[in-house]
């Protein structure tokens, strides 16, 4: 499946956008860290209607912030983009608070918290913000969520012959759930993928290989920790190649299944990675 990258969005690890993240990846400087409590100031929700803005949870605003950046850099109208929202556990805060509240005698789950608990909450808010009626697919595959999202988005773009918005995002579980499922950092990466034409600059060919490939490593240990510590981080070796403009095949193995092969051909520098 041959694709072109039309736009990139990034938020997380103390890096506010893709330009900042790409510069850090190029210069070899380490990513930072951002607690769930500090996350709010990095996030945009200003294009949501006021009522929805008040209701949207942090994972929703995280995903949307990355989506806005990717869509703006693509120059495409988001109302025309089908959406693939990939997250290993969705809004972990809402899930934890709901489960905690249901263990209390009152069992209070507010209507807003309930509708925010669905895995497609972020795509629902996004579709309201941009006024799109295109299909939205929310999916999950635990630590292999990034690869599953990339696969589904690539299939949608090449099947429909049209650009697709993909966002891969996670936020950490709060106490006490963080001990049952550790997610290290809030992180969201959005990509606008278009079926590749001959004129496309950065091209990617996505295919499936045999089970048991070795994951492409990151250059720095802090980046590797982010890649390993957040399911959404599994997409980072691909972003590193994009930032460096280096052609290379990124190997994304899945647990018990095929290996996703992301063959990136940069025309910027042309060199082999």
């Amino acid at each position, binding site marked *: 499946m041959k694709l072109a990258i039309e736009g990139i969005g990034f938020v997380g690890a103390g890096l506010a956008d893709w330009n900042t993240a790409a510069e850090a990846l190029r210069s070899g400087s380490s990513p930072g860290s951002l607690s769930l409590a500090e996350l709010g100031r990095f996030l945009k929700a200003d294009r949501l209607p006021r009522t929805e803005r008040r209701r949207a949870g942090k994972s929703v605003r995280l995903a949307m912030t990355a989506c806005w950046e990717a869509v703006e850099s693509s120059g495409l109208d988001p109302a025309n983009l089908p959406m693939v929202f990939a997250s*290993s556990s969705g809004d972990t805060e809402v899930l934890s608070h709901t*489960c905690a509240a249901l*263990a209390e005698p009152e069992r209070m789950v507010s209507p807003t918290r309930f509708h925010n608990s669905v895995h497609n909450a972020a*795509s629902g808010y996004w579709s309201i913000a941009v*006024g799109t009626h295109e299909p*939205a697919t929310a999916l999950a595959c635990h630590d292999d969520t990034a690869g*599953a999202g990339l696969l589904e988005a690539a299939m949608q773009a090449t099947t429909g012959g049209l650009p697709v918005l993909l966002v891969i995002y996670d936020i950490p579980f709060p106490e006490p759930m963080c001990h049952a*499922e550790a997610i290290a950092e809030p992180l969201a990466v959005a990509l606008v993928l278009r079926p590749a034409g001959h004129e496309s600059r950065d091209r990617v060919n996505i295919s*499936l290989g045999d089970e048991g490939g070795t994951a492409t490593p990151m250059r720095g240990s802090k980046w590797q920790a982010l890649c390993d510590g957040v399911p959404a981080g599994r997409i980072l070796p691909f972003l590193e190649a994009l930032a460096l403009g280096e052609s290379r095949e990124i190997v994304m193995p899945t647990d018990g299944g095929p290996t996703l092969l992301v063959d990136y051909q940069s025309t910027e520098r042309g060199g082999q990675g």
Partner: protein
Amino acid sequence: MTPYPSHPRLRICHYTATNAAGTGNRAFLDALRGRRSGLAPCNFLDVDLDTYVGRVDGLEALPWPTSWADWDCRNNRLASLGLEQDGFVESVQSAVGRFGAHRVGVVLGTSTSGILHTELAFRQRDPQTGALPAMHYATTHELSSAPRFVRERLGLKGPMYAVSTACSSSGKVFASAQRLIGRGLCDAVVVGGVDTLCLTTLYGFSSLELTAPEPCRPGDPDRGGISIGEAVGFAVVEADEEDADDLCVFGVGESVDAYHMSTPHPQGAGAELAMRRALEVSGMSAEQIDYVNLHGTASRVNDAAEDLALEAVFGPGQACSSTKGWTGHTLGAAGITEMVIGALAIEYGFIPGTLNTRQVDPVFQADYRLENRDERPARVLSNSFGFGGNNCSLLFGRKEGSE
């Protein structure tokens, strides 16, 4: 390898459903034809809500090998029970024999997966530290727990993931399967969905004042809301062979409302778009649809909006019914459950009516069937709509006379 056409018709090689109305296709068919509802007053755990539920009996007592201990949760128990019905495992083994385990994928829908496991863990927090007891999040609560469990049980090696778009989840899995097969990444895909009773959905829908104090009555002018059910269903789909008159999925229509997180567009605009897209990708016209299995939850707003959407697509008088009175609203499993109902209707020559409903809302324009009829539909459209305004219409049936 030669890629298939991008939107291949999918042959439905095998299917099975288990829910409160019946375990396996035979029992479910008997309940549908005998008009026996699976709904009963809620007796789930210590839930203190005045509502009816569609509960699958005996899950707690299902034999569970110690080697599966990490997977032990209500959702995987129901998935396991569903897998054992109707020779489903054997039919998957046949696909593996023909294509190889790495060419058979698994895509399942769910809304809450094994969240009950976490809800119950929160009841056992350490009173001093607040710590949770030992639990297995990844193999229970996590959304891809069931497809991972199913893949392990079936020995499959193809792509696997969970689609979780609330109540449209297990309709949309057919679109993913179509893409996996259309792009040449799989030769067969195990699709379906599983959702089980849990406190989140029972108390959540109750907080929205959407749960009825009686068995749900879809399409009734006095409908008082939904009954929540649990269900599992699976199908094996492959690329269709042109010359065979098999049961197949013609197309899947997907859309979003962009209107409200928990209320459908009042004129059913998103639902209308999903139905139109299903017809368009199938290359069919509205006249070719013999029966519409409605989303038909018995919520006031859903049923009214869906009727308007039907009128916009089909004009007045389209034959339809809601089967939620048998199963309850099985949320992320509703799409596969109602695909199986449509498949049984085609195979056994009947169109199910609507259970519990005393009369049809007089403002409705569709031919909203209350009684079962001995008619054999050839082509069925099945609707599944969810929170976040997420809509899916599945168009399936027999090819004979459709071209």
